[in-house]
């Protein structure tokens, strides 16, 4: 099929962004990741005759296990390696960087704030874990977070420079909180209230957006349960 691709380009943090439009032939099973690799390997011009310089983007595993290639494709945050052209149901593809983070170049954004936020909420164990039948499934699901940032794209409450840390923090936090022994207080409890519970508008727009398929809503209720209501989370 012949598709028209509109890609948001930006040469540096300071440069003005612009859209570049090009036409490309591929089949429906082609992923956006493959598309970007092929375009970068080719020497082509855009529809106005200007050369298409190498498009900067990040990828690593190419099989939706690492979260590197998150970007906005036709308005939705997705992993490029997990998005087939045929699924888009349009022969116009618009590719943009995630909007909640500072752009480095083209489709590369600086997601350092995710790591800083997890540091700020003390997301680590303060004693030996007790994994048992009650929390194994929760710990497994929470451990799958890719830190890709897709959930933040759709969150009405998250901005990179704010004190609300959103799902990319509360999903990993739910692993730590699931370990919490009764009457023992981790630093994370205080920080959780400040940076997650108090800022979350419960819009649940993050639901069903996670490319890893994590049940984000359940992680939020589990964590609220432990950190705010001081009781062990409800059974899965």
């Amino acid at each position, binding site marked *: 099929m012949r598709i028209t691709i509109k890609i948001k380009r930006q040469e540096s943090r300071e440069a003005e962004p612009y859209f570049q439009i090009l036409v490309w032939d591929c089949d429906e*099973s*082609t*992923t956006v*990741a*493959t598309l970007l*690799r092929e375009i*970068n*390997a080719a020497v082509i011009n855009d529809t106005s005759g200007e050369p298409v310089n190498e498009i900067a983007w*990040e*990828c*690593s*595993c*190419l*099989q939706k*296990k*690492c*979260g*590197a290639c998150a970007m906005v494709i036709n308005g939705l945050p997705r992993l490029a*390696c997990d998005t087939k052209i045929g699924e888009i149901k349009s022969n116009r593809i618009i590719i943009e960087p995630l909007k909640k983070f500072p752009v*480095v170049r083209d489709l*590369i954004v*600086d*997601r*350092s704030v995710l*790591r800083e936020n*997890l*540091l700020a909420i*003390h*997301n*680590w*164990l303060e004693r*030996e*874990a007790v*994994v*048992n039948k009650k*929390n*194994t*499934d929760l*710990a*497994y699901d929470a*451990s*799958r*977070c*890719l*830190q890709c940032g897709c959930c933040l794209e759709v969150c009405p409450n998250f901005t990179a420079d704010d004190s609300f840390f959103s799902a990319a923090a509360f999903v*990993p936090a739910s*692993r*730590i909180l699931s*370990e919490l022994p009764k009457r023992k207080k981790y630093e994370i409890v205080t920080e959780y209230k400040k940076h997650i519970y108090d800022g979350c508008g419960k819009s649940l727009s993050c639901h069903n957006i996670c490319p890893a398929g994590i049940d984000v809503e359940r992680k939020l209720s589990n964590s609220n349960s432990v950190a705010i209501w001081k009781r062990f989370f409800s059974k899965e």
Partner: protein
Amino acid sequence: MSIIIIGAGLAGLSAAVTLAQNGVSSNLISSMQSERAQSVMAEGGINACLNTMGEDDTVENHFEDTISSGMYLADAEAVRGMCAAAPGIVERLGSLGVPFSYNDKGIVQRSFGGQRKKRTAFVKSSTGKMLMTALIDETRKFEAQGLIKRYPNHCFIRLITEDNKCCGAVVRNTYTNRTVSLRGSVILASGGLNGLFDGMTTGTTQNTSDAAATVFSQGVELANLEMIQYHPTTIAIQGKRLLISEAARGEGGRLFINRNGKPWYFMEEKYPELKNLMPRDVVSAEMVQVAAMPECDSQVYLDMTAIEKNVWNERISDLREQCVHYLGIDPANKPIPVSPGIHFFMGGIRVDREHRTSMNGLYAAGECACQYHGANRLGGNSLLGAIYGGQIAAQTAMKEAADNTEEIIDIAEEPAEVSCGFARTVSEILYKALPILRKEEELIAAKEELNLLKSRAGNRAELNRLNLALAAVMSAIERRESRGAHKRTDYPDRDDVSFKKQSVAKISGDKIDISFKEIKGRRD
């Protein structure tokens, strides 16, 4: 004292945490954040003799399985150390919250290739991701204490050396292009040499092999580069090969090929003891051989249809989802077509038992280092080798490091990268020359082609890549025997007299030299 760690996958994190536990600070350099490391892709599990499955397993059994499937090419004492430490490592991972399953004796273990006992601890087939999450959180604890300083989105440029001593590293921030030099001993944990086979392995695009190629060009010895593991069950997907974990066979999956129109379970017939779970080099070579037989079809299948529902749900649900997603086949209902693909590099930077390289002040651990796996790695030993190797490298570096004041100096240096086209050309030559069954004439032709490419290398990085590729081909030429992953049709037998040794590659000036050295525990 501050130590520089290149790579924030499992080996790098293990080294950083070990240093921090001893109050030693480190600078942790990585091209991307840890969640993007290849370690997150490891699936089947991690080996340790926990003896929880009622099979009277011993550390000695683990040692013997590792050494024998490595075809006696690994340093026995190093392997003994790893196997002895394994139970403690896995228990520790449990206490870091890795959600293993437990029975009344402890952590549940599964069968894995080349092992006579159930010895592989696992979390479904997402073990690497689970270990990484736990270790990333543990690392964060020490980041908060100021003991680990992360440099994400930084790539390694080169070592700073003085008279065969490593005194630091030059790294570049890929987001800002700022290039700086850092002082201190260096632990390389830069992962496998996947970039040599661009788009043809089960690994990540970030494992470019550039770090190993760079230190090779700076005079560091590499070893056993010809030992490249083809995993038996992979599938070509866009841009790479998709791994179907050995857990599929560990949980009951069977390999077959249609012979005269009827399924032939060739591994079960030929190897009645371990059947489908023979070491990977054996299975892959058998697959190639049966597929070439005139009475057989050319496609081998993996049949998982007899696996019970609860096993699918509790132990390999993620593997099933992956097959449905990428192949459109539910493996619970229908066999899937599989073929061997490049998965792991047993060879790499030559290290001694304490993980010292041939250069003072430089250490290496994880897949970038040549240690523990000999001529063929056991499934479940890579995660173990990465964690254990990271610990040992850290302990040695700590002991030997000089007190240095932290010093960051800006450097003006133009970035040099291997272009896509050049990488692809080198990869195609290597892929043709280094299949499962190798022939001298193909290897020699590849060497000539690579030599001709020298004039096309546009920068230092491309020349380094080329030299690394040449070293791999030359090592394969010189090892005139068949052993583990290195199988030669012209030398089909093992030759212990000449080749129960490491092939060692070293560069001086423009000349690459391959020699065979004793497998010694300590550095010369």
